[in-house]
């Protein structure tokens, strides 16, 4: 495992470390073997009009390195999908973008992550305004055990976005409409959010996130706990939302990535292997590992 990080190190280190790679080549595991093939990220990781820029990001859990030297841009109003086998670090990377990893004490992030001009990991950067600008939707729908209304109103309340109750009502309605949940819940806004179905709960979580009017929305496998019909609704929603928001979505469903995203990033064992336009990734991948993954050889 240690040896695999050598190829993407800086060039001057490359030669010094190749010996180590050679020694470890005896490993029979296909994954480990293939990992050695990861070189520098191929494709187009950079955007012309970037909203968020990540440069040389390394993430460590204690001594273990989970993300190796990832550089990527997310363009304005773009949907970027992150795919890859489980444990490849895509969720870890996503959670770095609004510092949700701060809750894990042993997690350490190196490199540069910027939201426009704001340095996300600057020691003096407060996470609260950051998270107001970069919202997140989680894998499992996690509404607060409060009413639907209070769920959506929570963000605007804590951030002091409104001064009057009527403004708040307006935001709640607008967010629920945008999450295409309004018609289903408008008569029971004060019923508990936990009483909704799984798909509705997830849309409620999305409404809750957009109520704060973030600039970027991170989605961490938002449909993995949902049935196909609910999934379709959420996907439709993502497409609509991309008109107004910048979205980064982690998914383990390649079809989903193909349906909703503009660009797709393929992660493998903590490294970013390939980033390309979604069409290109699924029809004519540049890297052999990407091809192996999308054709189902592992994952």
């Amino acid at each position, binding site marked *: 495992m240690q040896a695999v990080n050598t190829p993407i190190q800086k060039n001057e280190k490359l030669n010094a470390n190749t010996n180590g790679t050679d020694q470890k080549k005896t490993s029979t595991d296909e994954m480990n073997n293939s990992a050695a093939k990861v070189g520098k990220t191929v494709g187009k990781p950079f955007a012309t009009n970037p909203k968020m820029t990540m440069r040389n990001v390394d993430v460590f859990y204690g001594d273990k390195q989970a993300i190796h030297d990832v550089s990527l841009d997310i363009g304005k109003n773009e949907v970027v999908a992150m795919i890859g086998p489980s444990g490849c670090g895509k969720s870890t990377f996503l959670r770095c973008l609004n510092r949700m990893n701060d809750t894990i004490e042993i997690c350490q992030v190196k490199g540069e992550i910027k939201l426009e001009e704001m340095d996300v990991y600057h020691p003096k950067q407060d996470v609260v305004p950051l998270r107001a600008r970069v919202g997140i939707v989680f894998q499992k729908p996690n509404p607060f*055990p409060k009413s639907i209304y209070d769920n959506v109103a929570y*963000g605007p309340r804590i951030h002091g976005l409104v001064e009057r109750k009527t403004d708040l009502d307006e935001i709640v309605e607008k967010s629920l409409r945008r999450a295409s949940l309004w018609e289903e819940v408008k008569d029971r806004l004060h019923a508990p959010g936990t009483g909704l179905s799984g798909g509705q709960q997830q849309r409620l979580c999305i409404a809750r996130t957009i109520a704060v009017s973030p600039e970027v929305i991170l989605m961490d496998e938002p449909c993995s706990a949902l049935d196909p019909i609910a999934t379709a609704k959420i996907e439709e929603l993502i497409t609509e939302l991309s008109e107004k928001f910048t979205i980064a979505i982690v998914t383990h469903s390649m079809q989903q990535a193909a349906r909703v995203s503009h660009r797709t990033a393929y992660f493998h064992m903590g490294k970013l292997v390939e980033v390309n336009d979604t069409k290109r990734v699924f029809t004519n991948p540049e890297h052999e590992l990407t091809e192996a993954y999308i054709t189902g050889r592992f994952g």
Partner: protein
Amino acid sequence: MTNSNQALSTAEKVNQSLQKRYRAEKRFKAYGIGAIAFGLLCLVVLFTDIISKGHSAFFQTYVKLEITFDPVEMGLDDPSDTKQLAMADFDSIIRNALKEQFPEASGRRDRRALYAIVSNGASFTLREQLKDDPALLNQTVSVWMLADDDIDTYVKNREDADGETFAGRISEKQMGWVNTLIENNQIESRFNTTFFSSGDSREPEQAGILGALMGSLLTLFVTILLSFPIGVAAAVYLEEYAPQNKFTDFIEVNINNLAAVPSIIFGLLGLAIFIGFFEMQRSLPLVGGLVLTLMTLPTIIISSRAAIKAVPPSVRDAALGLGASKMQMVLHHVIPLAMPGMLTGAIIGFAQALGETAPLLMIGMVAFVVDIPGAITDPSTALPVQIFLWSDSPERAFVERTSAAIMVLLAVLISMNTLAIWLRRRLERRW
């Protein structure tokens, strides 16, 4: 062929020892049932013993006498004058009433025995009566008065001991008088309001638990006020904020050890620190509450931590993901969701504190306090300590009252625990 033979012999061997093994099994099971039966039997015996001793204390014997409010005897001419009322001699009119009814008591000793039928607290009843209704002066009315505890004991127990007459501590003559009173319907057993409405007294018939109960409540009030917020805050710190380091470990070791330190040690702490060092007064509910706070804190911290742990991480993620700060996450989500669990643990802790005696002995809450305390800085005692104090008194009437006080204490504790269980069932969320 050999195979099946062997199999058969194994089965045979097993069968041979089978009966013995099943007997051992039955014996073992019987031990288990026996152990449980023993535990339950102890519980039943304990409760029966307490209730059989204590139930009679809820009733009190009263004696009806024809009292003449004679101004000369009392040395009082104006009942509206509080000073005169305070000085007036009501004992003498009670004595007169008794003498009138039983003129045969003539000697000094007989007279004294006769007067002992009525409690010496009865004069207060008369004073109150006259104060409320000054027109009673010079009138003769029949008044129900508190009987002395020995008479009370005799009246309550005379029929109990099968066939044999029970005398208790009263003399034969007194027994005769009391029997006459009973025949004349001048003796009545009534619900014992004194027991619930007065403080401690040297006379069993005038002693009540209100003072001790108030002391206990005041002490508990201080304990709740301090230990719950501090305990919850400590639990929040340890679960949500504490970094993993030596200092945090040290705090945890301390909490776990304090949870098992004998309560009397906390009493020594209170005596040396609060009374010795800070020079607070003895016998105050304030000091008692402080000591019990330190004693219950570990329990509350441990149960609150469990409740906080039970709040799923997804709720924390949701709050943080929206940009709530850690403090907002804790105050808006974690604490409200953990509250039922924390309350359940805390109520159980408070029930323990309410039943605690030893540390209160150390800080001097064992004084003989007649007045009913009204503030946390009034000297007072506590219900368990009152039980301890009364259990030392030889009078049968005090044994009865001790048991009754225990019944009250147990009733309070059982209702607190029931409340805790109800809260847990009703409010606790399963994730």
